[in-house]
């Protein structure tokens, strides 16, 4: 069997007495959408933070595309194709939507020690950025400042920035957070369009979204992965039902 795109082995993170990530082993296979679910405070975002390089694990290794990236910085991981969206929307608020995406393109277009040519009229940055904005449905809003976009649009913009880095693996931390029902449906439809073409690790609370999108699901409780498998197996797993899905009716 081919080597997984992302290999997490024994990753552990402690905050004082709290073990936020407890010996997590996980493989993400190229081309799959892998959902990570679990109750609030289970440590999902902490794990994403360690994958993106914002947090250093206390123990364990992370391999990406066959390379050990445990010690690499966040930008170095981004350059290798790991891209993340944040649970709390994180965009460049003072810049237009198009500027935001063009910056993400620029970050992956070689050195930015270029002092003369205006970036705002550089087709090498603007053309791909506009294409991506159109793909996520923000084309008409390209020249609106990010701060003036509606919440759902800002989330779409974040996805556009993630895509603009031409990632091999998308780490999406609750992309539907704070969205209305209709916006969520649109985002699910959009993410479904990415399925297969991109490898995705999706943290999400919205079970409809998870079961609609995921090829595999891992369940995290108190920093530990208690189950990983196909959606129907996870849904049927008694531990999972007790720990997490317990209060929900089986659909």
């Amino acid at each position, binding site marked *: 069997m081919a080597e997984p795109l992302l290999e997490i082995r024994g990753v552990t993170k402690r905050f004082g007495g709290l073990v936020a990530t407890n010996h997590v082993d996980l493989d993400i296979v190229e081309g799959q959408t892998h959902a990570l679910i679990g109750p609030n405070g289970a440590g999902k975002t902490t794990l994403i933070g360690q994958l993106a390089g914002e947090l250093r694990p206390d123990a364990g290794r992370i391999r990406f595309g066959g390379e050990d990236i445990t010690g690499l910085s*966040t930008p170095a991981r981004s350059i290798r194709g790991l891209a993340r969206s944040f649970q709390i929307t994180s*965009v460049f608020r003072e810049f237009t939507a198009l500027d935001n995406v063009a910056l993400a393109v620029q*970050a992956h277009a070689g050195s930015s020690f270029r002092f003369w*040519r205006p970036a705002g009229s550089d087709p090498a940055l603007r053309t791909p950025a506009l294409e991506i904005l159109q793909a996520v449905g923000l084309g008409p809003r390209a020249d609106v400042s990010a701060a003036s976009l509606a919440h759902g649009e800002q989330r779409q913009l974040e996805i556009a920035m993630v895509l603009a880095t031409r990632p091999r693996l998308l780490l999406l931390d609750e992309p539907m957070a704070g969205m209305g029902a209709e916006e969520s449906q649109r985002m699910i439809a959009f993410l479904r369009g990415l399925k297969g073409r991109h490898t995705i690790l999706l943290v999400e609370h919205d079970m409809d979204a998870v079961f609609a999108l995921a090829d595999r699901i891992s369940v995290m409780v108190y920093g530990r992965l208690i189950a990983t498998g196909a959606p129907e197996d996870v849904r049927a797993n008694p531990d999972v039902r007790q720990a997490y899905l317990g209060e929900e009716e089986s659909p």
Partner: protein
Amino acid sequence: MTPSRRTVALVAGVLVLGLVPVAAALFNQPFYIDLFRRIMIFAIAALSLDLILGYGGMVSFGHAAYLGIGGYAVGILTHHGVPNGYLQWSLAILASALIALVIGAISIRTSGVYFIMITLAFTQMLYYLGISIEEYGGDDGMRLARRSQFPGVIDLSDATAFYYLVLGILVLFLFLSHRIVNARFGMVIRAARSNEARTLAIGFAPYRYKLAAFVIAGAMGGVAGALLVNHTEYLTPEFMHWTRSGEIMFMVILGGMGTLVGPLVGALVLLLLEDVLSAWTVHWQIILGPFLVLVVLFGKRGLVSLLPGGAGRG
């Protein structure tokens, strides 16, 4: 695309500055050449600070260091019998850039209050170094025997010629800054100011870019220092006093951070008010203080934001 009002204001301001020597000759008031030359020199210093403060989000509370380094580069060479302006100004730029590289390499690893305190501490070190070197006048400073010499090109002892040179350098730096902040390089430091976590996550390592901006700002500040010592014809450690750093920072905040015209407006308003009020009463700071507080309170983005249509980009 129609030019923004801010650009119009900038061009109008530069044109008015160009007419100052004509008006001064007309009304026989050579003093104004002196006053506006000083204003423009501080505008250059404030512009260089704005590159890192307004665009790069680096609150350097030690920018007067480069006024001092530029001033000492000229003063020391003149003192040792080297009045050649090309050598002096090259030394001013190189020494400022080098010291900015050292200060920046250390301070940019920190942020917030620590960044402010480290930049302040470095400048205080340089200030006390200036005080302690008796050879160059120590605490009292020393007179500059003659202005920088550019034989056959320009004579700085001609007040009007020197004035237009300063104006030319100001316009050149405004243009260079405009290119820099809108180029890919400028976009990185502005992005890092806007949202550091996002900047890292999309793949930028902003440290190198911020450091380069810090060095560019230092070099520009060094030019302002070389101009200032030629203007005052007197070298003193007071160039590097922390209140001077505060004054330059205030010009940027007063005029409008992260704009090109802001530092010019700030230098104009602050130094003109100082001039007018101090002629009127010795207690002028009692009037200036509350005015500055009001501007900061009500024009949060500086005087530039009070221009009609000034809230836009540019």
